[in-house]
């Protein structure tokens, strides 16, 4: 069982929801990312999605675009991101780390090189936003044998036929996109999300977590109530963007930057009880 599956199974055994923050690696400075990851774990994160910065993030809204631009101004590369995961692992052997990003940086590094480097860094999962299930075999065929989970998005527009193909290629968890749009938009139809997730349950036993548009304790609780957990990106990246682009930050300052995760975790605890 992968670290991701073990983590989620452990939470489910305690009737708890999964809380997954997303941050952009290297935002707003390379030296802060690992400390921020530890701060997120302190705040209650169960799994961390670490964004690989890419110059053309066409599925992301304005907040994450700006985070990516800050990370790229620091010269953050995919090699740096893998390095950050290794460093994080020196102090944290439990919390799963999922790399999320776009295909081109991995394509340029080479699939084989990426797979072995990700395994060496102890990455737990990969989610490539612009890699549909039909095209995934070459890359995911390289990472899966190394014990890395392959995670996919399912959108409100995903057809029944594609849902089956995605479930067949997914391990770890399914990432359900709550809305038609980009990251950071507002969820308009909660009932529709609930219906879709209920339908997905009939297709797969994989845990289903909901992302896009979850910005506070209230939206997190609403989505967690109908799923196995939530992913929080833009609301966190917005706060991280206020950190200085150079110089050290105290632990207290980092804890403050990730306070939204702390408050969502608290709210989810109450939801569980």
């Amino acid at each position: 069982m992968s670290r991701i599956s073990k983590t989620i199974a452990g939470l489910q055994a305690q009737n708890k929801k999964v809380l997954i923050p997303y941050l952009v690696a290297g935002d707003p400075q390379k030296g802060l990312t690992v400390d921020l990851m530890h701060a997120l774990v302190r705040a209650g994160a169960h799994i961390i999605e670490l964004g690989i910065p890419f110059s053309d993030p066409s599925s992301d809204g304005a907040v994450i675009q700006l985070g990516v631009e800050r990370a790229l101004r620091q010269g953050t590369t995919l090699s740096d991101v893998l390095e950050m995961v290794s460093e994080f692992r020196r102090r944290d052997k439990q919390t799963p780390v999922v790399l999320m990003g776009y295909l081109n940086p991995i394509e340029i590094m080479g699939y084989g090189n990426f797979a072995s480097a990700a395994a060496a860094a102890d990455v737990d999962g990969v989610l490539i936003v612009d890699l549909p299930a039909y095209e995934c075999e070459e890359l995911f065929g390289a990472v899966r044998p190394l014990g890395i989970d392959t995670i996919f998005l399912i959108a409100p527009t995903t057809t029944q036929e594609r849902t089956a193909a995605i479930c067949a290629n997914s391990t770890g968890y399914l990432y359900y996109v709550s809305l038609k749009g980009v990251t950071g938009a507002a969820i308009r139809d909660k009932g529709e999300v609930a219906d879709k997730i209920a339908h997905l349950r009939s297709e797969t036993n994989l845990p289903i977590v909901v992302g896009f548009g979850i910005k506070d304790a209230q939206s997190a609780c609403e989505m967690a109530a109908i799923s196995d957990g939530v992913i929080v990106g833009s609301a966190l990246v917005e706060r991280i963007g206020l950190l200085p682009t150079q110089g050290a930050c105290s632990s207290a300052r980092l804890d403050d930057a990730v306070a939204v995760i702390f408050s969502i975790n608290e709210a989810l605890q109450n939801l569980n009880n």
Partner: protein
Amino acid sequence: MRYTVSKSPSVDIVSGLDTSHSADQFSGPDLHGHFGRYGGAFVGETLVAAVEELDRVYQKLSKDPAFWAEYDKDLKHYVGRPSPLYFAERLTKRYGGAKIVLKREDLNHTGAHKINNTIGQALLARFMGKPRIIAETGAGQHGVASATVAARLGLECHVYMGVDDIKRQSANVYRMKLLGANVIAVESGSRTLKDALNEALRDWATNVDNTYYIIGTAAGPHPYPRMVRDFQAIIGREARAQSLEDFGRLPDALVACVGGGSNAIGLFHPFLRDEGVAMYGAEAGGEGLETGRHAASLSAGRPGVLHGNRTYLMTDDAGQIVETHSVSAGLDYPGVGPEHAWLKDIGRVNYVPVTDQDALTAFRELTRLEGIIPAIESSHAVACACKLAAEMSPDQFIVVNLSGRGDKDIQTIAAIDGITI
């Protein structure tokens, strides 16, 4: 006979697709949009259903003669096709070699080849019942062509354009507004064409239910590269028939400029099986490949994935897309259509960089010698053709795609000359 002349298309040159060939290497893409290892549909999950629906609709409509009849009718009466094939006699004399013959896409309504594609895609949008059109634009030509067809069909139109391009192409911005389009300034990333494309993709994902995205070049996720090629292939079908009529044979070479590559693939595609016809794609060499300031993704880039397709890209060692440079806004794009990537790899088409300087020289020569002011984009093709002609014999001839007229570039040229107009 020196030339392998393939069978003439079994259909009239201005109607529908050439179905006279059995499946061979040039009948791509495959069902999932691949040309060799290039192409595909690398989009976020929200848009997968949208591109699949578009593919289904296009598969169906492209087999329907009534669809092509309407397209042909619009091309004839609204666009003004067929566009002439014109022998540029004085330009030919200047280089003393092969005859230089221009395919006059600059004479189309709105002044460029772009309208061939927007006419076709607007018919699709109407058929699919989408009341809202979005488009991206660099120089503004595709934006104008999209706003034009939207006005004609009474569709709402939003055009994404980088803020830097809006400053450079103010006349086209105003033209779009006159046509009733909403021009949206894109402030993200490098604030040029590639970022306008990102923003259009974001809009599409958000408004996928009621919106049709008219991509302006033969790139992007499947089925766009195929569809845009099919709508632009009218250029090559006409040029092929006109060559046979005017010269009694096929040309020795074809030349077209390549940014995303829609005018080039439109000219080349109907000739791909004609082995005796050499093909040259003129890329934006900018200030020279050695300076790194250019947009020649085929000559100096490498394969990667951007904007929905695997193709040659201008990307750095870390996989980030790098900023490109060209004096011509329409060629200033870090990628290229996937069919070109494949045609490069199999060696069917030669892709050559043409510098800003050489393109500007060709611009002036064509203007003075023939009284035709070409778009700076098309001037890259003219420059390439002049060089080629000089090395060929006078009994040979080259067809150059004069993809657009240069009115939009007058301010750029004046600025280079130090004149404010």
